[in-house]
């Protein structure tokens, strides 16, 4: 608590720091910060540091954003990209958890499949694109495959380490109460690996999203990546920046609304989070 006598003497810095103590305050500070960034941008534009076709004004980007939202281009592109992401990601979560549980429970699998998975993770998933195009052709499957490969390994690895991190004592608890193989999996392994898996799901989705954007940039009709590419083709810097903003916003919203909450919820239940 602040002493009443000090209340008037608060500097703006202290005011902002106190605002971050509540959730609404955090949002407010964030919005103010964004406004500051836009103001700097506007200032740079007004000072004519770079020619307008390299750095358009915030106003013209906003106008492009509005126009393309109104004529349905942005919503359609977002829809197409998210649909691809959802399919690729869902498949990779299923496959990743399967691979991860398998490698975590069998030493043989861990020293074979597990090692390959670790190696594969170092391959940027957009590098799968040429292979995907040759396999599937220039179509939807190829681009979904790239998103799939983007998150597969991080989901598999986090599942693996999640299963391995379960203390043997908890397995013994399951055994002494006569848990069957299936019950062991359902009641001990799956909940036990959740903290690690939640982190992997979050990481995996962001990898999938980035891979998808890279893939769409290189080829594939519609989608946000393609919109970016069109901006470059038309030398329309406003469109490029507007699309980037949309990609960032989608990422931020997904991260905060879905994965941030999932992670927080899992950690809180386990007493692992500080808040």
């Amino acid at each position: 608590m602040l002493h009443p006598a000090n209340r008037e003497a608060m500097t703006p810095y202290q005011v902002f720091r106190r605002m971050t103590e509540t959730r609404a305050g955090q949002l407010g500070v964030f919005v103010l910060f964004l406004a500051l960034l836009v103001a700097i941008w506007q200032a740079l534009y007004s000072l004519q540091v770079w020619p307008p076709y390299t750095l358009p004004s915030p106003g013209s980007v906003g106008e492009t954003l509005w126009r393309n939202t109104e004529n349905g281009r942005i919503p359609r592109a977002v829809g197409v990209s998210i649909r691809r992401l959802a399919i690729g990601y869902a498949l990779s979560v299923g496959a990743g958890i399967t691979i991860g549980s398998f490698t975590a429970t069998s030493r043989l699998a861990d020293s074979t499949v597990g090692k390959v998975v670790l190696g594969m993770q170092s391959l940027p998933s957009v590098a799968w694109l040429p292979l995907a195009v040759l396999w599937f052709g220039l179509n939807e499957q190829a681009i979904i495959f790239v998103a799939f490969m983007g998150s597969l390994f991080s989901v598999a690895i986090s599942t693996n380490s999640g299963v391995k991190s379960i203390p043997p004592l908890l397995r013994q608890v399951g055994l002494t109460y006569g848990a069957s193989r299936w019950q062991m999996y359902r009641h001990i392994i799956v909940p036990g690996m959740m903290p690690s898996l939640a982190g992997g799901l979050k990481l995996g989705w962001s990898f999938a999203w980035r891979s998808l954007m890279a893939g769409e940039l290189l080829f594939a009709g519609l989608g946000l990546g393609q919109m970016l590419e069109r901006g470059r083709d038309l030398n329309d810097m406003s469109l490029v920046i507007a699309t980037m903003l949309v990609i960032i916003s989608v990422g931020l919203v997904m991260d905060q609304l879905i994965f941030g909450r999932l992670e927080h919820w899992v950690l809180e239940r386990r007493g692992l989070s500080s808040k």
Partner: protein
Amino acid sequence: MTADIRPRHAGTEARKPLLAVQGVTRRYEGNRQAVTALEDVSFNVFEGEFVCIVGASGGGKSTLLNIVAGLDAPDAGHTLFDGEHVKGPGPDRVLVFQEAALLPWLNVRENVEFGLKLRHTLLADIAAKAERCLELVHLQDYQKLHPHELSGGMRQRVQIARALAVEPRMLLMDEPFAALDVQTRERLQDELQEIWMRTRSTVLFVTHNVREAAVLSDRVIVMTSSPGRVKCEIPVPLPRPRQMDSPPVTGVAMWIRAELQHTGPAGKEPAIASPS
């Protein structure tokens, strides 16, 4: 508790033990040499008995309990439970661990219900049994808390409630109070005594604390360490409830300690017990 209505032929046959440990030996392969944790251990536990196994820490007592629980297997000898060979863990023998082995993602109530759920007990029965067991360990007001919000003593109470809930034929307790501070420990010993007087379950309780053994048990099995062997059995025919500091309990505790101090590793001079 229901009365045993089977006809008894007094004197015609010996009472059949619920648990018979016969010549159990267990060795571990160490780096340089094999360690014999248990050597030719034999004893019986009868229905409704509270038996303590007392021995120095690290003397193979936990190994013995794990073998009875079916989590470990002996290299020689065998364990008979109700006349049948123990081949693996079974719902009739439930182990209470020294560490607070609660499932961290479940709250107190869900932890107590854990064993019942695995057994597909009817939902209404689960609720009633969990309620009753939470009451037995005085935790009915803490049902919604998660293990990380509980004290060490409360966690062990949850473990005991979880084990009682499935009504095992035998409760196996592996130094359940060893990690607690003295006050909590004595409170829980009192509570366990109280619970036992109400339920009369069969209990096999491992401890290195002689007073704990004297207060709780009907019979004490004293074990030597490295290798773990049964040294002797001490009956404790004292009436309950017993007070921790009462002279008879203290006397039994001193007797157990004296037996323990004559059980150093082979070849060593036995220390002289000096009860003061």
